[in-house]
């Protein structure tokens, strides 16, 4: 790279609240924005916020927001200097990053090699090991990735037969009799010599429950918990389907499922030479791997453990020669003081505002500065943490009906707002796409708004958040607002430090909206999801 290159015009290749948020920073920096829109988003709030919009295809994401050629074509047609991919969609797509580079356009994100290393969750695991980070027991499965099994490995209840070190399951080899539900028979038999056979063996070895994860996935998509051997084949198939549809990569892998872990992640910034961290976030309030409430810093973490987590994230970033903003996710066993690497998200995250609130930084502005080829503007010592921040996601879904998605049209949207100076952290911040008349298409995720509260300490932030949620009104589509108010009002969340199973137990105990029943409604197999 030959010296910093000023970015004056940016293509925002995303939608929803993150598009609006990126446009906000660009406007403050005097950067022009052109937003890519699908036919479903042509009149959205971010479309109105952008200086211009460019249509890239019909509503289905595969034909618009996931179409690399359409995005690069739009960037060239719009004459932009750079592309900001937001989160989800093509944000971690190395092909887009390379296509941008080939077209002489800056991709605001990590280098393509880093995207590949982080985007392939299996490769990321290996990098984490190389960087000295602990990982959850597990490994790859499927036809292309038969996992060598060592002689000492235990064969658990899931293993149909012992596997010797030289054993290979090539196409055409015999397979064990499937004991799954009859209704899935056709699907299993029609699969190519696929994942489930090896999955069985590996799952038996690492022990149930296991987590089925998508190698190409992220944050929930393609994730399944399997508690018994009989459920494994189906879970692998469905997870693989979701992953294939979402990422064009149907490979899945297994990890031991740690039930009472906390999800803690560390925000990093790197310029390719130097890596710093902007502190940790706790995202343990999840429902089926979809984060619902996030906060910074992680409450009640042992200071030594916090330091080790942050150092581990920086070590991995340094190992990857990381350039841009990223997040290293960990599963923390707080009781034992242990943690495991989960994955690297090589992009901005949904929950980045809580980090911005406690550091006073604008992470999108830092992303742009790094993309211009500048060295980091901050040293580690320049990062100062002030207070506590909590974010609540308002989704278009109905907790009383099994969290059934609720697409439609917003007829009224009222959000708290606070007097403050532009660009300065506020006690309350709302990032949203919702306003009267806004469409919530069935084609994309259900995130409507993020309500972020900042206080001098956690108790103050929590009080501010409760007041802020009380002032929110969304009409026209069903939302999880009522449930979120109840969660942030609960004794467990107020105490802090809940694990990732908290929300499931809390809902099962009937403390949620309505009857709180997970099985309500006719929608089945709703595993969780968004791309963050």
């Amino acid at each position, binding site marked *: 790279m030959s010296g910093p290159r000023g970015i004056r015009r940016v293509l925002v290749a995303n939608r929803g609240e993150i598009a609006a948020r990126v*446009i*906000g920073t660009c406007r403050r920096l005097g950067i022009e924005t052109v937003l890519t829109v699908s036919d479903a988003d042509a*009149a959205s*709030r971010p*479309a*109105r*916020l*952008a200086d*211009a919009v*460019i*249509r*890239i*295809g*019909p509503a*289905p994401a*595969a*034909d618009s927001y996931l*179409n690399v*050629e*359409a995005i*690069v*074509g*739009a960037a060239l*047609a*719009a004459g932009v200097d750079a592309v900001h991919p937001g989160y989800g969609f093509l944000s971690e797509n190395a092909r887009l990053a390379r296509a941008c580079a080939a077209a002489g356009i800056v991709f605001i994100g990590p280098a393509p090699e880093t995207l590949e290393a982080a985007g392939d969750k299996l490769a990321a695991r290996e990098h984490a090991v190389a960087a000295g980070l602990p990982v959850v027991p597990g490994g790859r499965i499927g036809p292309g990735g038969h996992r060598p099994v060592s002689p000492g490995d235990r064969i658990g209840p899931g293993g149909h037969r012992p596997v010797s070190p030289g054993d290979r399951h090539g196409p055409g080899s015999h397979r064990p009799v499937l004991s799954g539900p*009859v209704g*899935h028979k*056709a*699907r299993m038999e*029609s699969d190519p010599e696929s994942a489930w056979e090896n999955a069985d063996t590996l799952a038996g070895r690492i022990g149930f429950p296991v987590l089925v994860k998508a190698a190409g996935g992220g944050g929930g*998509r393609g994730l399944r918990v399997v508690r018994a051997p009989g459920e494994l084949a189906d879970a692998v198939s*469905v997870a*693989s*389907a979701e992953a294939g*549809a979402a990422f064009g990569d*149907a490979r899945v892998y297994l990890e031991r499922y740690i039930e009472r872990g906390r999800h803690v992640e560390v925000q990093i910034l790197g310029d390719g030479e130097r890596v710093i961290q902007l502190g940790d976030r706790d995202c343990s309030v999840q429902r089926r791997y979809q984060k619902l409430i996030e906060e910074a810093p992680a409450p009640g973490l042992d200071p030594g453990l916090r330091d080790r987590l942050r150092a581990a994230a920086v070590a991995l970033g340094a190992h990857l020669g990381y350039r841009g903003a990223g997040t290293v996710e960990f599963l923390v066993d707080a009781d034992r003081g242990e943690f495991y690497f989960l994955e690297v998200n090589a992009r901005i995250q949904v929950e980045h505002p809580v980090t911005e609130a406690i550091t006073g930084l604008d992470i999108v502005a830092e992303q742009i500065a790094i993309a211009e080829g500048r060295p980091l503007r901050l040293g580690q010592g320049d990062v100062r943490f002030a207070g506590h921040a909590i974010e609540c996601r308002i989704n*278009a879904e109905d907790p009383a009906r099994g969290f*059934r*998605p609720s*697409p439609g049209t917003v007829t*009224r949207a009222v*959000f708290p*707002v*606070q*007097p*403050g100076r*532009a660009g300065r952290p506020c006690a309350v911040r709302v990032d949203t796409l919702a*306003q*009267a*008349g*806004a469409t919530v298409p*069935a*084609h994309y995720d*259900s995130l409507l708004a993020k309500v972020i509260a900042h206080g001098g300490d956690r108790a103050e932030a929590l009080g501010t958040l409760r*007041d802020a949620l*009380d002032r929110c009104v969304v009409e026209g589509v069903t939302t999880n607002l009522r449930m979120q108010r109840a969660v942030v009002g609960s004794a467990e969340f107020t105490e802090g430090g809940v694990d990732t199973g908290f929300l499931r137990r809390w809902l099962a105990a009937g403390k949620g909206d309505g009857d709180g029943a997970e099985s309500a409604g006719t*929608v*089945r197999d709703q595993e969780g*999801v968004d*791309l963050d």
Partner: protein
Amino acid sequence: MDLTNDDVADILALLDSLPYDALDLRTDRFHLTLRRGPGGWTEESEALAPPADVTPEGGSPDRDGAGQAGGAPRADGAALEAADADGLVAVVAPLPGTFYRAPRPGAPPFVSEGDAVGADTVVAIIETMKLMNSVPAGTSGRVARILVENGEFAPLGAALLHIEPDSPVPNDVDS
């Protein structure tokens, strides 16, 4: 062009020191309402002006790939037709979303016309807001007809398949 969070914060900073409890600002481009309540200020907005569309002549830069995975939504009568009088039972979309016949692109379909199904047999996936919802047949019998193209958008309640039940069903069966 609409107002960013910064714009609203700036307006509110002016308003906060004044003895007013509400501001209703309507221009050709936007409609913003700010209200002072017991808990603090709230904002409410409505979009009015269309965005500035700079899509080149001839549509989007690349629409060649369009339709491969999705196809144009076709919420026409065919998809919405109810079960006919021959005693067929419709499997309907439990949510509006994209209809998929197979667990993943390129994989064989869950079921084809003529296949025997049980009530719990998964016959399709409906993808709504990024959630894959498997759709069970709901009735044991035989797949008589598949009514929606793979990748097509199905409105809520649209008939996806017709099942010829093993045993005759009452007219008002609830699938």
